[in-house]
C-alpha cells in the first residue's frame, strides 16, 4: 500500500514523462502539489482565477496559456485528477447554469448553444460560458 507521498511522487513522475515542455511540467507539479495539500482539501469549485490567486501566478496571457495547458493535462484521461465542467452566465444577475459537456460539444459542432433551461439559443455563447474544475475520486482519495 503506497503512502500519500509516494502516490504524489508517482503523479509528478508521470507528469514529467508525459509533458514535453519543462515550463508546463513545472507548473503542473506546482498545481498538483497544491491540490494534494491539506489547504486544498475542501477546494471544490476550482476556477482559473482562484488557482492563480492561490499559487500567486502572474496574470499575463502567456501565464494563462501555460496554466490552461497544465490544467488540460491534469484533467485529461492521462492523469485525471480534475474534471473540467462548464457554467453559463447568461446575465450578470442570474445564477449560473450548469452545462453538460455534450451541450458544449454540440455547440462547437453547430455554432449554437441552447440554454438548457429555456431551450433558446444563447447569443455569443463563448463570451458567457466559463469552464471550471472539480476534484476526481482519484484526487480525493489521498485526502481520505
Amino acid at each position, binding site marked *: 500500500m503506497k503512502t500519500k507521498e509516494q502516490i504524489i511522487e508517482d503523479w509528478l513522475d508521470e507528469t514529467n514523462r508525459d509533458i514535453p515542455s519543462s515550463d*508546463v511540467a513545472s507548473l503542473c507539479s506546482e498545481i498538483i502539489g497544491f491540490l494534494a495539500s491539506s489547504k486544498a482539501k475542501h477546494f471544490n469549485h476550482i476556477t482559473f482565477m*482562484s488557482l492563480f490567486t492561490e499559487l500567486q501566478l502572474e496574470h499575463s496571457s502567456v501565464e494563462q496559456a501555460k496554466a490552461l*495547458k497544465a490544467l*488540460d*493535462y491534469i484533467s485529461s484521461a492521462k492523469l485525471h485528477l480534475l474534471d473540467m465542467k462548464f457554467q453559463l452566465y447568461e446575465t450578470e444577475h442570474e445564477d449560473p447554469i450548469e452545462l453538460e459537456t*455534450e451541450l458544449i460539444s454540440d455547440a462547437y459542432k453547430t455554432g449554437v448553444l441552447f440554454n438548457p433551461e429555456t431551450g433558446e439559443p444563447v447569443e455569443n455563447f463563448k*463570451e*458567457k460560458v466559463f469552464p471550471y474544475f472539480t476534484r476526481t475520486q482519484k484526487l480525493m482519495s489521498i485526502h481520505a
Partner: protein
Amino acid sequence: MPNSISLEQIEYLAKYDLEVKNLIARKVANNYEQFVNILHDDLDDSIQHLTQNRHLYQNFSEDQISVNLIGMLKARNYDADHDSQHGGHVDIIVKHQFGKFEWLGEAKIWGGPAYMADGWAQLNKRYSAGTINDNHGGILLYVKAPNAVAKLNDWIDHLKTIEDEIKISSETNPLVKNTITKHPSSGLDYRVRHIAVVLNHN
C-alpha cells in the same frame, strides 16, 4: 460574474500559444468524426511547424521526424505514441477520450511510390481494423526531395493501380489528398488522409 476566463478568452490565448488552439473542442469531442476533424487541424499546424523548421530535419530518419510530430501532439494532450505494440509497429497512434477513439498513421521519407505502398499495406492490412471508431488513418510523405506536390500525385496515381475501389478527393491544400477504400478487415469504408510534408531544404 465568475472568477474565471470564458471560452472566448481561452480562444484569444491561442495568439500567445498555438497549442491552446482547439483545446476546448478537443476536450469535449464526443464523437469520432469530431475527434478526427480537430486532429486533422492540429496535425496540419504541427506539420507546418515541421516545414518551417525543415533545416533541422535533413539528417533525421522517418522515426525521428515522427517522434517530433508526436511530441507536438502530446503537447496538445493527445494520447499519441510511436511504434507501440498495436498489431505491429505502427508509426503514429493517436487515442482520445480514454482510448475510445483511435487514429493511426504511417509515415515514410519519400523514396518512390512502391516504398509508400509498403506503408499503405501496413496501415490498411496490418495495423488498423477499420471499425466505426477506427476508420480514419493517415499516410505522411516526408518529402526531402523537391516538388512535394508531384510526389503526392505520383503516390496517389500508384495507389489507384493497387486498389480496385477507391474514391479520391482534394482539399484546399494541394499537399493533401483524401481516399476512401473498403477496409479488408471490416469491409467498411476506410478514410485515409495523405499528406505531403515539405522538408526540402537547399
